[in-house]
């Protein structure tokens, strides 16, 4: 049994908590949050011990692993403290607001030999995994261009007052939404190496951007476009997709459907020349407990198994998330430089 605790019981935190509560190899030993209503409800209706002071929780509950789902600005402080105490860490995305602090955490966690994972859940979605596997086995030939997109209805009117509307706390479409797409491009295609142009626009928010459009270059070199807008109400929920064009074909993938076009018969087993369509129903492994998408359960399960030593700690490491933080930072700097 892995003794797990949670810091930050907001939307993502509660989701992790529920998945952990149902996990046969995890025991929830503590929940820390400073919103009284949340801890009161949990205290009253669950068996999880609740704390308003996370340090007290660490001392009393002595967890093996901690899930950090507090606002992004607290990530580096909390993670640093946890890793220093020898605790395995799962932290929500994005990793850190300050790149230097992130670098030190990567170094520290390696030095301590602890399991570390960041919540970029798209990597646990069957369609994107399959897209990656086709690309890495070179079936798409030489990669030429990609388009990474994400749209959703987070801010659809002028009225916002929480940490997501504050740039200092990690708010904004770039950190909250675009980071997912950047992380996916880094993983599925190749690491982004250059920002060739960027526009960030506020549509409803007063202090943060609601959309991010950028011209990118990834290792290869492969050119690409990033187009992200969290103020698009034509989408019912966040919808992320990537299109990749190679010398031998093309891939269009979102979280539910993978469309692959091959120019010739040189394709992976199960595929043929022309269009191929595969659905997430065939590509996603079943989970033992389902809450809101297999990927959310799968990433928690992967982390628990990594702590138990059953799987290697290679998906969504601090190091891979640091690369995403660094691209996010470069896009921000580029935008500030040219557009103030």
């Amino acid at each position: 049994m892995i003794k797990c605790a949670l810091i930050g019981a907001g939307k993502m935190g509660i989701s992790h908590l529920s998945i952990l509560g149902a996990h046969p190899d995890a025991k929830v030993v503590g929940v820390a949050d400073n919103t009284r209503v949340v801890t009161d409800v949990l205290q009253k209706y669950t068996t999880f011990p609740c704390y308003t002071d996370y340090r007290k929780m660490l001392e009393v509950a002595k967890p093996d692993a901690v899930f950090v789902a507090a606002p992004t600005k607290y990530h580096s402080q909390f993670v640093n403290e946890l890793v220093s105490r020898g605790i395995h860490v799962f932290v929500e995305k994005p990793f850190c607001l300050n790149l230097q602090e992130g670098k030190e955490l990567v170094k520290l966690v390696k030095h301590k030999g602890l399991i570390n994972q960041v919540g970029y859940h798209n990597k646990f979605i069957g369609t994107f995994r399959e897209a990656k596997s086709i690309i890495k086995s070179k079936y798409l030939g030489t990669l030429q261009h990609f388009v990474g997109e994400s749209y959703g209805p987070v801010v659809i009117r002028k009225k916002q007052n929480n940490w997501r509307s504050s740039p200092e706390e990690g708010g904004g479409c770039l950190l909250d939404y675009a980071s997912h797409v950047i992380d996916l491009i880094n993983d599925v295609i190749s690491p982004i190496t250059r920002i060739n142009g960027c526009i960030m626009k506020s549509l409803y928010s007063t202090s943060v951007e609601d959309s991010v459009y950028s011209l990118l270059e990834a290792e290869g070199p492969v050119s690409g476009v990033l187009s992200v807008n969290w103020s698009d109400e034509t989408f019912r929920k966040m919808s992320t997709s990537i299109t990749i064009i190679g010398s031998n074909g093309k891939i269009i993938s979102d979280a539910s459907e993978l469309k692959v076009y091959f120019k010739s018969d040189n394709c992976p087993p199960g595929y043929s020349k022309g269009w191929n369509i595969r659905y997430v129903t065939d590509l996603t492994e079943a989970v033992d407990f389902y809450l809101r998408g297999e990927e959310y359960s799968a990433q928690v399960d992967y982390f628990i198994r990594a702590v138990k030593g059953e799987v290697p700690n290679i998906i969504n490491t601090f190091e891979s998330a640091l690369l995403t933080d660094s691209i996010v930072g470069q896009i921000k700097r580029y935008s500030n430089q040219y557009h103030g």
Partner: protein
Amino acid sequence: MDRILFGDNQFFSVNHISDEKSRAQSIKFKDDRAILNTIDIAINEGLGTFMCTTHDRIARICDLIRQKPSAYQDFRIYPCMPYAHKYANSVTELGVIGTIQQYIPGGFFSSLFKGGTAILSKDYTSIMELMIDAEMKMFKGIDTPVIFLQNVVTDLLLGLNMKEVFLAYYDYIIRKYNAEPGFITMNLPKLLDTLESVGIKNPIICSSINKIGFRMSGGQELYEHTLKTRKLRAIAMQVLAGGAIPAKEAVEYVCMLPNVESILFGASSKQNISETSAFIREADKLYSQKETLLTS
């Protein structure tokens, strides 16, 4: 419960396997009239129960239905609450407290707040009851014999093991609405254990049940075993697994399972509605004939 229940996913661009299809549906059902017309087609095909989320647009559909009481005399709605995206988006925008304030009618929450957390901590059940009432308002005057807790909430509570909340919901639906409480889940075996542990017997549980084991968490085998050996009134949904299984084959599998009282499906066209219902009726006939042969 009717053997066949007509669902609403197609009206609200919920498609589990294709974003393109969901956009096409969203265009097709832009007008409330288009939704009602499809419901009318389903009624003509003998599907008198509509199972739907408490989406804002359902409120408008209910208005249209109330305008023609004679046409919808035998029509029933099984509400499924809450429409989770409404609250999830609100939590993202306003936070937990802001969301409760937004959706609790009147000054209830602020008056509680003035009393401090001591009063508040005793009254979460009242908050839940007020939220149920707020969701149920749109169905006034319409027959709602079964009222469901939506799967995101059921499964969230299940993972957190908040058993008492299930019981509070169950009791309130019976007490206030004189209706049967139902639960939608993606984790049927685990939910049944939990409901039974708080004394809820023979519950109505709507869950993904299909031939390929899609979203049958805990495994298909465990589901089949649970249906065969335990006491529950199951409703099978996602029978076609998002279109991964041909309709006839899909329906035959579910019709063969014991304890599956109803089958829920949604479709946009007259052809699909009538075809799928015909498959269900044929399969039922086939299995009842087989059973008669075996027992005689």
